[in-house]
């Protein structure tokens, strides 16, 4: 793919790679925020900057889709949107900590943030390999594995909130936070699905 790739495609894949780096940075920051909350709650501001950066990259990608590309436009659009969703949901999670006046983290949220950071790193790696025309299958397998892990943690975390005698405020705030973390991880899996489609077409 890379041998016959136009400079336009190269620029587009470069933007996806940049988006992947932004996703990875967001995941890392959210993990730090969650494990070192509330002492480092200012990291939420850095995540907001990542979210704004993600919007810019997505806009650039969509702008370039109008100029003709060997990549399927539908796939490229879906990929850009899913990458943007990862960062959006991560930013929503970070914002919720302040919005809901969270006093302390939950272990399950730290675990989910760890899973997200891992999935985001795999997304970045896959997009980098895609740009260079290399095999991305092991990254996709890793993203699916992490998504399953995230599902398990999230289900158990939400179930734990509904044990008898729990503060209703704790239920309200953490159910939302667990769900936004899970949605960020699910978006990584959506990225993996789109990349699988792109890979199939590339080798088809």
């Amino acid at each position: 793919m890379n041998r016959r790739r136009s400079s336009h495609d190269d620029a587009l894949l470069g933007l996806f790679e940049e988006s992947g780096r932004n996703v990875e940075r967001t995941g890392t920051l959210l993990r730090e925020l969650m494990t070192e909350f509330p002492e480092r709650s200012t990291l939420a501001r850095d995540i907001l900057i990542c979210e704004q950066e993600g919007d810019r990259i997505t806009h650039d990608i969509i702008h370039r889709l109008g100029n003709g590309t060997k990549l399927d436009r539908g796939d490229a659009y879906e990929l850009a949107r899913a990458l943007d969703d990862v960062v959006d949901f991560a930013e929503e999670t970070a914002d919720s900590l302040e919005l809901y006046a969270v006093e302390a983290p939950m272990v399950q949220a730290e675990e989910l943030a760890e899973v997200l950071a891992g999935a985001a790193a795999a997304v970045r790696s896959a997009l980098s390999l895609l740009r260079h025309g290399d095999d991305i299958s092991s990254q996709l397998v890793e993203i699916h594995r992490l998504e399953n892990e995230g599902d398990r943690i999230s289900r158990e975390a939400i179930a734990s909130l509904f044990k008898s005698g729990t503060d209703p405020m704790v239920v309200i705030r953490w159910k939302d936070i667990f769900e936004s973390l899970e949605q960020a991880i699910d978006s990584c899996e959506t990225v993996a699905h789109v990349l699988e489609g792109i890979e199939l077409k590339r080798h088809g």
Partner: protein
Amino acid sequence: MQEHSTVAAFAPAPFSSQTGVRVQPGPIRLAVIDSDTGFVRVLAKRIGEMGWQHRVLTAPPRAEELLSMRIHAVVVDLALLGPQGWEFLERICDALPGLGILICTGQSTVAQRVRGLRIGADDWITKPCHPQEVIARVEAIVRRRKRTTGVTEDAPLVAGELEIRADQFQAFVGGQSIDLTRREFELLHLLAKARGRVLERDEIYQHVWGYAMVHGDRSVDVFVRKVRQKIERFSPDWRYIHTHFGIGYRFEPETSDGQPPSDATPDADELRDQTPDEVTSAK
């Protein structure tokens, strides 16, 4: 569990004009477990006039729920609980040895009253009864319990360089406030009252936050960290809160090298833990 609670904004009621009885400083916190709405309404009105804080429960709560209410006493109609009444009584007597228990119920046999008192109830009153008598008996129970423990809830606790004053919801080092928030204070006060004993995280959370702790909640750890940091700013040579990994926390003042204070004579050490009143009487 159906519940009506009255968290009245009450002023301390040092003297009751209606009963003519002096009560302890600070309002009594009381739970009434009874579904007799007429009786409860009249009792609640009188309790409100006394400036007490009370909750009315129409079904038996779990012991942990009673614990989290931080009440001094409970008035319970055993008839409401049916055959489970004795079991409930045993459970709360076991779980909450510091809680005053007044059984206020309908006609009963001598054997039933003896059984109730032997299980651990402090007093028994038969309906119909006057609410003022119920109130007077609760006062007597609470007064007796405070006399037995010898410590009033508002008495300052002194440990190392730290003075913990429940009447001001604050802790001081050398007379200087260490600027604890309400929750930080409650956590420190709870640990200090249980000095030398390891309190589990769940137990701490239940007391301070008033709810069951969700598995994985780090609130207790975070607040212990905050309290430690605030104390350390004013009392850097002492360690007060010790971590018991996987269990919880224990309050015990020690100097930074892990040794008990070398300059403390046994007498001074002994006096350090007493309330000002006890110190005065000891002298």
